[in-house]
């Protein structure tokens, strides 16, 4: 098999497993919702339940038909983006979700970038002088970043900037269309989300870099007189970043989950606060749609991470590594 054939096979197999997982997750979600104790429509509509509405819902969602048919209805509609209409606002649920997604994506993306941009250099510095007091100091810092829950970080940041200093805005996402304002509003929430990951990435980079620097191919480079900076910055780092990319996949899931807390505290609209509010209002179709989006995104993100990994380390695509 040529290298491109192998890579294609690798991508194909990953895609296949992704599709399967999304299918399974959708099934689980569907079952979870349907198996709620009590009559589904009453639970869903809550105090708004009238016989007419209940009949309408029953018909729309196909609750009067068999379970497999319901699943097919849900899945086929979801695949085309039809999540039905919101009972209260009569807007398509898809629109409701799409309204808030950009906010959360901006938050997650900027948190990720922040974590990488700050975490990687810290890890490299620590690895260059292991055992020194710089290393110990950075270690202490990183560990405290990692262990402090996002909840605590957000609360403290909020306290400092809302009650104490008033340098940065603490609520909302900023005026739409005003890039600078939106960026300003992005700062605190991103920092709150990213802090834990800064710590984790810096520890991971340090350990991975130390391991790589001890490997024999680095000795070869040294034997041929290649400068230490070039060795660390170019050759060692590429290899050392492979585990970092791997955890980014899990990181994205954690980021999305933690974004709920951050969005609530900083009063940002986003898929996290949408889920939260919908749950509070017992608006289950919206919850369902949100979860489908999140799961799909999470799985696709992991797929992208796998691809990037294969790019970084050609042994992975070949099935080894």
């Amino acid at each position: 098999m040529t290298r491109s054939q192998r890579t294609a096979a690798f991508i194909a197999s990953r895609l296949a497993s992704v599709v399967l997982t999304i299918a399974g997750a959708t099934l689980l979600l569907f079952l979870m919702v349907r198996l709620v104790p009590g009559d589904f429509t009453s639970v869903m509509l809550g105090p708004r339940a009238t016989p007419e509405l209940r009949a309408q819902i029953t018909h729309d969602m196909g609750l009067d038909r068999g379970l497999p048919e319901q699943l097919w209805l849900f899945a086929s509609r979801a695949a085309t983006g039809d999540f039905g209409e919101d009972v209260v606002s009569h807007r398509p649920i898809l629109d409701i979700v799409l309204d808030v997604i950009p906010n959360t994506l901006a938050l997650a993306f900027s948190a990720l970038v922040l974590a990488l941009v700050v975490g990687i250099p810290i890890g490299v510095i620590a690895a260059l002088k292991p055992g020194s007091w710089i290393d110990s100091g950075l270690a202490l810092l990183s560990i405290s970043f990692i262990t402090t829950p996002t909840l605590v970080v957000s609360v403290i940041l909020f306290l400092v900037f809302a009650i104490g200093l008033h340098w940065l805005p603490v609520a909302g996402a900023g005026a739409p269309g005003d890039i600078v304002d939106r960026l300003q509003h992005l700062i605190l929430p991103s920092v709150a989300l990213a802090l834990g990951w800064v710590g984790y990435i810096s520890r991971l980079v340090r350990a991975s870099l130390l391991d790589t620097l001890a490997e024999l191919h680095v000795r070869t480079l040294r034997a041929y007189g290649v400068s230490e900076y070039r060795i660390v910055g170019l050759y060692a780092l590429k290899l050392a970043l492979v585990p970092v990319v791997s955890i980014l996949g899990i990181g994205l899931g954690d980021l999305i989950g933690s974004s709920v807390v951050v969005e609530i505290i900083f009063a940002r609209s986003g898929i996290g606060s949408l889920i939260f509010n919908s749950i509070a209002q017992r608006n289950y179709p919206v919850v369902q749609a949100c979860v489908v989006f999140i799961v799909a995104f999470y799985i696709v993100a992991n797929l992208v991470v796998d691809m990037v990994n294969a790019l970084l380390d050609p042994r992975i695509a070949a099935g080894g590594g």
Partner: protein
Amino acid sequence: MAISVRNLSVDYSLPQGTAHALRGVSLDIKQGELLGLVGESGSGKSTVAFALMGLLANNAKVVSGSATIDGKSFDLTKRNATASLRGRGMAMIFQDPMLSLNPVFTIGTQLCEVLRRRAPGSDRKTRAEMAQDALDKVKLSNPKRRMEQYPHELSGGMRQRVVIAMALLSEPALLIADEPTTALDVTVEAQIMREIIGLRDRIGCAVLLITHSLGLVTEYCDAISVLYAGERLESGTVKEVQRQPGHPYTRMLFDCEVPIDRERHADATQNRFTVISGELPDPRRRPPGCIFNGRCDVSFEDCAAIHPSDYPVGTDVDHSARCLRLATP
């Protein structure tokens, strides 16, 4: 003398104490000569190489030693004494080619990296051409394709050829080969050794071949030095040393070799191997006398007390050994 090492002593500081890995080792290699440094595991042969290259581990300390390479002398007690020679005057081939090559970069990239140092100021295209040319010289099939491939896509023998190509590109005055064929099949071993000799012929460098295989040395090398527990016990041309080993250890080593055409008994249990009984001495505690004393079969009482100096053996001026038996005329 193209290469000479004088009085190299290296200590390792370990949690259990200080290990004296090398004591007063001296070597000479003529230009274009292949010197085989032979010794069992733990004799310190790799330490000689790393001390020369300045690649010793952090817990190692060069207590004494100097080297003269191509006319220039270096004080080996300083950590980066020979740093300027790396990639230009000295090249090293390591034992395991898979581990010695970076798995996530192409062969071409790694070869060109060597050239950056060797030919600074050259552009990428020139470097690529030189690299490809080197691959061709080491008889690697399809050099153009190899440039784009990754180490794991090549076999062990091919990888070692790449490593030799790297050495070729740096045009060294001294090539150190640390057990270059140990990780390879026997069938590939001959090919690689021929490549190394080809390299020597092409560039005219001195080669220090570090190995535990006496057979390799007698087959391919011009000169031999025997290392035991950190001391050089004997050195001379391969022909002379083989004909008339000056040191008991050398003699016993040759006796251990089993020639392929040796007669075998019908009853397999009757076949006997010669072994050298005993173990290496503890590197933390050197005995006052001869280092080989405990395992020698011809030692006498002075051997335990007097540390033998280098005595000439036979008529060849290059042949010498550290044995008190040679002291008595």
